[in-house]
């Protein structure tokens, strides 16, 4: 039991130390020690939440946030595999499909929002960059997502967000999902004009908007 606690603390430390290289091996040790994988997952979530909060306060910077996120990407598959073996599922605040729209390869802002949403307790499906409208629609349907989050960093690609929203309408699922948009050319007026449900100027604001739209308190 003592070992379990030690390994669980190591797992948290690996996130807080941004230790990408050791993430996977520490996660394996935790599972081998017999620790509850659900507990291990919550340890990772707690750690990334601390990182996210420190980033929100300005104490940590973007490389810290994304490196912590990289640690999670390495550690989580190991933990998840163990959870699935036990036939359990992790509890989340909601499911979010996120990506940067077609024609746009900017990933930083989208990555920040994805990490902070994850840190806040959401399940995040990150489709990456240059995501076509049909791929957003497919993922939203398959995952039964609660929120679709789209990023655009160019004035020329911002309208791509509107195209995806139109696609949701055509597929008859617009009322089943909340849509948020972000990126430097986006503002509240633009968000309203394309029929999105919310807009956040910064990544932490984006998380607040999602919580508000899903009726989740702070």
């Amino acid at each position, binding site marked *: 039991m003592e070992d379990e606690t030690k390994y669980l603390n190591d797992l948290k430390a690996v996130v807080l130390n941004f230790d990408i290289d050791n993430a996977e091996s520490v996660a394996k040790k935790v599972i081998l020690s017999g620790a509850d994988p659900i507990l291990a997952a919550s340890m990772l979530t707690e750690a990334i939440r601390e990182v996210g909060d420190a980033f929100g306060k300005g104490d940590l910077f973007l490389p810290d946030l*994304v490196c912590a996120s990289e640690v999670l990407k390495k550690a989580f598959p190991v933990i998840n595999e163990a959870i699935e073996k036990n036939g359990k599922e992790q509890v989340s605040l909601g499911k979010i499909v996120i990506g940067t729209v077609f024609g746009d390869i900017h990933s930083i802002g989208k990555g920040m929002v994805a990490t902070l949403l994850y840190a806040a307790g959401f399940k995040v499906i990150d489709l990456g960059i240059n995501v076509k409208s049909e791929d957003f629609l497919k993922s939203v349907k398959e995952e039964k997502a609660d929120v679709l989050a789209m990023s655009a960093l160019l004035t020329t690609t911002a309208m791509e967000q509107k195209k995806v929203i139109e696609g949701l309408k055509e597929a008859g699922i617009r009322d089943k999902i909340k849509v948020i948009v972000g990126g*430097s050319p986006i503002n509240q007026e633009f968000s309203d004009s394309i029929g999105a449900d919310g807009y956040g*100027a910064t990544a932490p604001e984006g998380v607040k908007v999602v919580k508000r739209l899903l009726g989740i308190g702070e």
Partner: protein
Amino acid sequence: MKKGFIRNIKPLEILTEEQIQAIHSNTLRVLESTGIRFESPRILEFFKKNDCNVDFEKNIVKFPPYIVEDSIRKCPSSFTMKARNPKNTLVIGGNRHYFSDMPGNWTIDLDSWKARPATKQENKEAVIVLDALENFDIFCAYTPYFEVDGIPPEMSIPESYAAKIRNSTKVSWEGSQKECEIFIIEMAKATGQDVMGVGLPSAPLTYYEDACDSLSRYIKADFPVNIACGVMMGGTSPASIAGSLVSFNAEVMGGIILAQLTRPGAKIVVEDSVLPMDMKTGHPVFGDITTALHITAFAQLYRKYEIPTFADSGWTNSKKIDFQDGYERAMTALLVALSGVNVNNLYGGIYGELEYHPVQSILDDDIAGMIGRYIEGIDVNHDTIASDLIEITGPIPGSFLATSHTRKYFRKERFFPKSADTMTYPEWINLDKKDCIVLAQDRIKQIIENHIPEPLPDDQEKEIEKILAKARKRYGSI
């Protein structure tokens, strides 16, 4: 010891070897044939005894070149200034770069931009702010405020030094008037720290008795002396930069020789305070680019002499904290640093020496940080070259953001300003469009509320009060 900034880049060199030699040999010529006027019978006698040619009728001392060059050689190339807390001790000289402040007679109102005398509390708070600012290293003479409401002029320097000792552990260099250096030296000794004194020539080519006395007293106490020479080009020196360098240098040499004959190995710094004269009004012009050219040549010459240097950069002709104030001080301060000067007098002063404001000192702390980061240069080694990382990362979609290398270096490589507006546009709108002046005011509030300077031990506080009482009695200000 306080690190300051280490200049790891080659200093600016704008003169050729022959040009430096020309300034030096013409300095020797002025000292040998024109000489320096010393308004002090005691000093004239002293020079006579030391083999200089003295004209007692005209009070002129002419110096043989060997005495001049011998005195230059005797100046230490660097020296330590002990602070009352060792973490603030300075080593002045070499490739080390420190920041100091500029005096202002009065404070200014940030809405009306009118100047008025500062209160004792405002003076104290201005010192506390400088104590808190990490890139600020040494207090300049007559700072922050030259005139403080309720303090008689004769007591301004002793009271000013006492306020610095009480509210900061950083070292000071202090001015002189009416022999007040006696009390300054006592206060430094009572608190176990070094203080830098002054020996100020009056251009052209003259030293009055009080300047000689001040220099001698500090040197005898084994404290360093700043020979700071304020010159107006076209008025108290030739209007040409080269001519001004020669007359400035000859004036300074008068003090250096006096110091080295008084105590061989005396610790000397030389300060360039040269300004062009405004030929419409007769006023000095502050923030003029000529000043920076003069300083760069001066620094090159004094590196050759291996004598540490100070220079004034926080001079602007603007009466407000505005764009002109920003570009004049930032350009001069950067050039001063690039020139290889050891102490950069930047913080707080506005419009020559008329005004000072702590908001300006907060903004200057960011300028100092930017400049300091620049002169520390580029670290080139296997890890920083990062060719392995570049290979692993590859073209798009490769990114360097989520790598340990980025985490390791992004902080080290950058300077992060504390009061600059670094917000995104939406953040800026949400935060009432705050600019750097408002952000600096926010930072001052934080400092005044949270920064508690290391207090003086009780016995030292009593000593300081005793010395001040003696000074007040001497100047009849009780």
